[in-house]
């Protein structure tokens, strides 16, 4: 191996040439080349399933590419494992976290070093870490267990880890999807500054044009595993970039909002309390009513009890006190009640919360219907035929990109898992819909599609509770807005009587 890491001390350039990766019958990457200059902040764009993650995982040595070579500062390097990549100063933040949950932040940092000492002198390390943290614009509690950190803090820690390891070629796979816009701007601004000073080179996968335009200088676009274009991010227009991403596929027209005549109250949360895993109260006395044909958006900075509230509604967390009522009847979140009241939901992190990763796409899509005709006869005899037929139909209707209904759902790209779950939840007759961050990590075409679907359900008369950390999403979809802060709802307003600033102030707890 290259024992003099070419990257130490300055920003390296990286070229990947002719990268090809085949998964069974699928060419996930087909002769893709990318050229990232030293000190540039390069965006890698493409729709869900285009092969962006696959490309960077090949560069990282996580997958062995079937073809292709990687040049670092113009010299060919052989990277067969993430360890080789690390030795060459190439680091990556993956779409899924790679921190060890039961270790503290400090332990995660120290053990990630290739030269971690056999016996760790915590006094010395703590001082060194504190000095390192002082030079960083954002910080993370070093002695907290990673499992107790919020998603935003974990993401910051992932990036701090790369800087701590002096990895000057940084690959970030959708790094801002868990951050608030403020946090994202702060972080990208910092990285952009470091890149401009030629301290690091960044290759960032993103679905957010706003970020790409504001922080990146170059971009490369992939589509269905092929290179479709690259250019200067500052001068090329968003319209041209998106054309490279989706080709000539038409984007679905947004569904408009149909004026509804103020339906009856359907979903009612009455004094809902819930505790976190340590028994501390995280949801405190939440009262909220959602009418038929109405979307109520719950805005809030992540970690203010929204996820616990969604978990309560989806039966993953017990109610500590209070009640949930649907059309005046008490609702106990279990499978029977979901069916009876026609409650559907899309929780956050669907791969973890709404699927069985190793089961096939068809089986995952059938979770709501496998014990009913036509999939099951007499309530227990399952026929795979109708199940697959239904899955094929839904896969086509929701444009889920998969190798077929039999592929394990964990092999789908992040965005496509989301679509498969949505296909399952929205294809029936919906009375109550509970969605949490539904567009997390989706490309703009899918975002448009999924928001339309939600709006359509509302127009058909469903009561929709939308929990989202994306304020734009709330403003676009909601009929009424509620702001959650410190575990309670401290502000509710009709959308036409409020604005972004007022909501923002309440999100900050005022």
């Amino acid at each position: 191996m290259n024992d003099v890491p070419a990257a130490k001390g300055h920003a390296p350039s990286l070229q990947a040439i002719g990268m090809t990766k085949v998964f069974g019958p699928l060419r996930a990457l087909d002769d893709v080349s990318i050229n990232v200059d030293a000190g540039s902040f390069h965006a890698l764009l493409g729709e869900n399933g285009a092969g962006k993650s696959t490309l960077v995982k090949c560069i990282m040595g996580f997958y062995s590419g079937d073809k292709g070579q990687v040049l670092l500062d113009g010299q060919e390097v052989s990277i067969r494992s993430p360890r080789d990549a690390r030795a060459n100063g190439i680091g990556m933040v993956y779409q899924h976290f790679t921190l060890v949950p039961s270790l503290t932040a400090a332990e995660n940092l120290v053990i990630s070093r290739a030269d971690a000492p056999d016996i760790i002198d915590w006094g010395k390390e703590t001082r060194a870490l504190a000095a390192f943290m002082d030079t960083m614009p954002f910080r993370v509690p070093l002695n907290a267990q990673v499992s107790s950190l919020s998603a935003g803090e974990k993401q910051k820690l992932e990036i701090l880890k790369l800087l701590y390891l002096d990895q000057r070629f940084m690959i970030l796979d959708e790094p801002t999807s868990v951050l608030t816009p403020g946090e994202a701007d702060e972080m990208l601004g910092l990285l952009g500054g470091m890149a401009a000073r030629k301290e690091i080179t960044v290759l960032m996968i993103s679905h957010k044009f706003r970020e790409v335009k504001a922080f990146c200088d170059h971009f490369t676009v992939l589509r269905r595993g092929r290179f479709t274009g690259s250019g200067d991010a500052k001068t090329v227009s968003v319209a041209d970039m998106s054309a490279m991403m989706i080709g000539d596929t038409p984007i679905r027209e947004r569904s408009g909002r149909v004026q509804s005549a103020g339906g009856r109250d359907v979903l009612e949360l009455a004094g809902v309390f819930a505790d976190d895993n340590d028994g501390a109260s995280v949801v405190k006395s939440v009262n909220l009513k959602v009418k038929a044909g109405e979307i109520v958006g719950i805005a809030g900075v992540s970690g203010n009890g929204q996820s616990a509230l969604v978990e309560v509604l989806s039966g993953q967390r017990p109610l500590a006190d209070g009640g949930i009522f649907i059309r005046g009847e008490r609702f106990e979140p279990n499978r029977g009640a979901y069916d009876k009241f026609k409650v559907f939901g899309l929780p956050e992190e669907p791969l973890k919360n709404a699927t069985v990763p190793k089961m096939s796409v068809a089986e995952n899509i059938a979770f709501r219907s496998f014990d009913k005709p036509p999939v099951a006869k007499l309530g227990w005899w399952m026929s795979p035929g109708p199940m697959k037929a239904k899955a094929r139909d839904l896969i086509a209707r929701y444009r889920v990109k998969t190798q077929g209904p039999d592929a394990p759902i964990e092999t789908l790209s992040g965005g496509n898992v989301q679509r498969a779950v949505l296909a399952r939840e929205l294809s029936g007759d919906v009375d109550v819909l509970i969605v949490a961050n539904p567009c997390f990590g989706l490309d703009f075409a899918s975002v448009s599609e999924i928001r339309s679907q939600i709006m359509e359900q509302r127009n058909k008369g469903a009561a929709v509770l939308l929990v989202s950390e994306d304020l734009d999403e709330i403003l676009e979809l909601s009929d009424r807005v509620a702001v959650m802060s410190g575990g309670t709802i401290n502000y509710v307003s009709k959308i036409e009587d409020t604005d972004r600033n007022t909501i923002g102030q309440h999100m900050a707890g005022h």
Partner: protein
Amino acid sequence: MDNAVLTVLIAMLGGAIRVSTPFMFVALGETLTEKSGRINLGLEGNLVLGAMVAYATSYLTGSPWLGVLAAGMSGLFLGALHGYICKLPKVNDIAVGIAMMSFGTGLAFFFGKPFIQPQAPKLDSIPLGDWTGNPALAQALQVNPLFFVGIFLAVAMSWAFRNTKWGLIVRMTGDSAASAKAMGVSVDLVRFLATAAGGFLAGIGGAFLSLYYPGIWNQGLSSGQGLMAVALVIFARWDPIRAIFAALFFGAAGAIGPALQAVGITSGYYFFNAAPYILTLVIMIISAGSKASARDAPGELSITK
């Protein structure tokens, strides 16, 4: 009456010291293995084989400490075998563990036949209670050096899990194999080593049984201590120091029955003999239901996944 209470308490102290050692070693070994993300249910096999090998070695060489070492090596062998088989694709560690338990005890009974009769030299103990002038207390405070080795090991392990590179790597492997791989750590190798080392400790636990207390070798020597110790690991929430306390507690509870009998309370003798099991069950139900225990469990264990 006061005297009787004292007798029972002294007996419990003695029980804690005498009976706990094999539990300590097996539980510490299992803690190490489980921290790396694998379960070895077969440590009962290591315990019994270790007891046999220790006894035989001590008999043949005349040195009980050589017996202890040999017992450790036999446990290392069984642990390494478990670790190796689990590396093969599509193998379930729990099933392998149960197979290894039968394999270990089977081997011990097969090779152990000729050693049931002869007398092997035993391990000596350190009399720590002679100064008290109380013969019962002096008897209770006869402590085998392995007891202190176990406590020292627990402290060392607990320190190492926090303060050494290897400790952190074991915890990382046990909690998130994906992170370990992303860091270039060979997950299989770490688990193999942790299982082998855990097996070594369990083997030493066996040596204590045959060479100190009860200090014989026969086929009924272990009454499931190896299995019980594996359960203690969950009870101790994967913490070496808590494992020591669990073992002491278990030993003390086991002394209740005989001690009550000695002071003349004979009713419910069998009930009190079952006390350690009942108490453990009760405490397990209480503590396993708590959310704290779910958080301490290594994320990669096949029971928690």
